[in-house]
C-alpha cells in the first residue's frame, strides 16, 4: 500500500513538473537547469538519515561524504542560479 502511494507521488509530481517546466521560456533555460540541479541535491535528506543511523565507521564516512557532496550541490546550485538571475535586466533597467 505504501509503495503504491509513493509510486503515485512520483507519477503525479513528474507530470506536474513536466507541465510547469514546459512553460519556462528558452531565455531562462540555463538558470532553470542550474535551479533543478540544486533541487537534485534533495538526496541530502537520505544522506542525513543514513549517516545518522549508520553504526559502522565505514558507513559513517561514506554517509558524511554523501552529505558534503549533496550540500555542495544544493548551495552551489541555488547560489549560482541566484547570481545568474540577477543579471537579467530590462531595457530601462533598474535605474528607474
Amino acid at each position: 500500500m505504501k509503495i503504491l502511494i509513493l509510486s503515485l507521488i512520483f507519477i503525479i509530481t513528474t507530470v506536474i513538473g513536466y507541465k510547469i517546466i514546459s512553460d519556462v521560456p528558452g531565455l531562462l533555460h540555463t538558470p532553470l537547469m542550474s535551479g533543478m540541479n540544486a533541487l537534485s541535491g534533495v538526496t541530502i535528506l537520505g544522506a542525513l538519515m543514513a549517516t545518522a543511523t549508520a553504526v559502522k565507521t565505514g558507513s559513517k564516512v561514506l554517509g558524511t561524504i554523501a552529505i558534503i557532496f549533496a550540500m555542495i550541490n544544493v548551495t552551489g546550485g541555488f547560489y549560482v542560479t541566484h547570481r545568474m538571475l540577477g543579471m537579467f535586466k530590462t531595457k530601462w533597467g533598474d535605474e528607474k
Partner: protein
Amino acid sequence: MNLTYYDGISLLCILGIILGIRLMNSPKTAKYGNLLGAISLACAVIVTLVKNDIIDNTLLWIAIAIGGIAGYYLAARVTMLKMPQMVALLNGLGGGASALVAVVILLGNLGTFGLSFAWFTVITSVLALIVGSITFSGSMIATAKLEQRISQRPVYLKRHSFILGLISITLLVLFAVILHTYFVSFGNRSLGDTLGNNPDVLTLILVILIAAFSLLWGIIFTMRVGGADMPITISLLNSMSGLAGAITGFAIYDPLLIAVGGIVGAAGLILTRVMCKGMNRSLLQVLTGKTVLGSGTEAKTAMSGENKELFAESSEKQIEEDDYNKKIKKITAIIAEAENIIIVPGYGMALAQAQYQVKVLYDKLMERGKDVKFAIHPVAGRMPGHMNVLLAEVDIPYEILYELDVINDDFDNTDLVIVIGASDVINPAANTAQSTPIYGMPILNVDRAKHIVVLNKDTKPGYSGVPNTIYKMDKVILILGDAKETIAPIISYV
C-alpha cells in the same frame, strides 16, 4: 512529531518547490522562484532532522557546513562562460551522493528505517547505486571535457556499443546475484534483523563491483560524446541525477525525495528534448554515439576539396590590406543606411570573450536610433539557454533576445545581419544538403536579409564539419579573425 505531521510539512515543501518553478517562467519573478525553492529545501532538511531526532548530531552539521561553504565558494567564483561545466560538476556530486546513500543502506542500514518491505528497499537501493554512479562518472567526464582537461573530441573504443552492452549485462547479472544473496542466503527473513549491521564479505564485494561497473559505464558512455552534443548530454545527466534522487527516496520511503527527484527528472527530460529538436537529432542517435562530430568527419573529408579552396581564397583576401579597408568602408556605409539590424551571436563570440564589445556595438547602434535585436539559436552555447546568460551578463536587456521561432520570419525585412562567431546555426546547407549531418536542423534564416556581415574566426566548418555555404553569397561581407579585434574597427566607424 508524528508521521502525519511530517507528511503535511513535506507536502508544503513540495508545493513551495513547485510554485518556485512556476515563478521561473518569467525573468521578472524567476529570482523569487529560486529563493522559494531554496527555502523549501532548507525547511525539508530541518524537518527531516527533527523528525528523525538527529538535529543534535554534530557530525551531520559539520558535513553540512563543509559542503555549504565549498558550494558557496564554487558558485561565487564561476564565470558565466564556465556555467556548463559547473552544472555538470554539481550534477555529478548529486548523483554521487545518491549512490553513496545507497551503499550505506545496502551495507547495514536496512533495518534502521523501520521498513516493512525490505525487498523493495534492496531493489531500489541497488538501482539508486547504479544510476547515481553512472551520473557521477558521466558528469565528471563531461566536466573534464568542457574544461578541456581532456580532449573534446569523441573517443571511440573498438566495438564501443558492444562493450557498453557487455557491461550492462554484467550489471544485470550482478543485480540478480546481490538480490539472491540478500534473499535466499538469509532465508528472506526480516532483513533488518538478519543483516543488522554486519553485511558479509560477499555483499560488500558485490556492492563494490556494481559501483565499479556503473562508474565504468558512465565513463565509456560519455567519452564518445563530442563537444557539440554536450548540451544534450548535460540535460540528460541532469535528468538522471533527479532520477537517482527519486529512487533513493523509494529506498527509504521518503515522499519528499521522491517528489523533488521526479520533478528534476522531468525537467532534465524536457531540456533534453528541446536540445535534440534544436539539433534535429533523436535522443537515440546521441545515446548510440552517432555524434555530430563523428559523422561530420566523414562529411569533412568528402567535401574537403571544396572547403580548402574556400579557405585559401579567404585567407588570401585577408592578407590584402586594401581589400580589408574596402570591406570596413562598405560595412560602415551599410550600417549608416540600415534601420533594422539583427545580431546573431554564436559560441565563437563567447570563446573570444567578445560579449563586452558586442554590448558596446549594441549601445552605439541604439544611439544611432537603429532597431537592434538578437537572434538566439537554441543550441548556441554549450548548454540550454547559455547564450542568453552570456548576453545578460554584459547588461544586454533580455527583451531583445529573440528565440529562433519568434524571429526567423523577421530576417526577410532586415537590412543587416551581423553574425559573430556562429557557423552551423546559420548554415543554409541544413535546408538543402541532404547528405550532411545537419540536414533538417532548424537554422536562423540569416541568408534572407539584405546585407550580411560575418565576423568569424575562420571559414572552417563548425562542429558539424559541414562547410558553410553562406560564405560564398554575394551579399555577405566576411571578416576573419578574433571577434574581439574584428568588431573594434566596426565600432569605431559606427
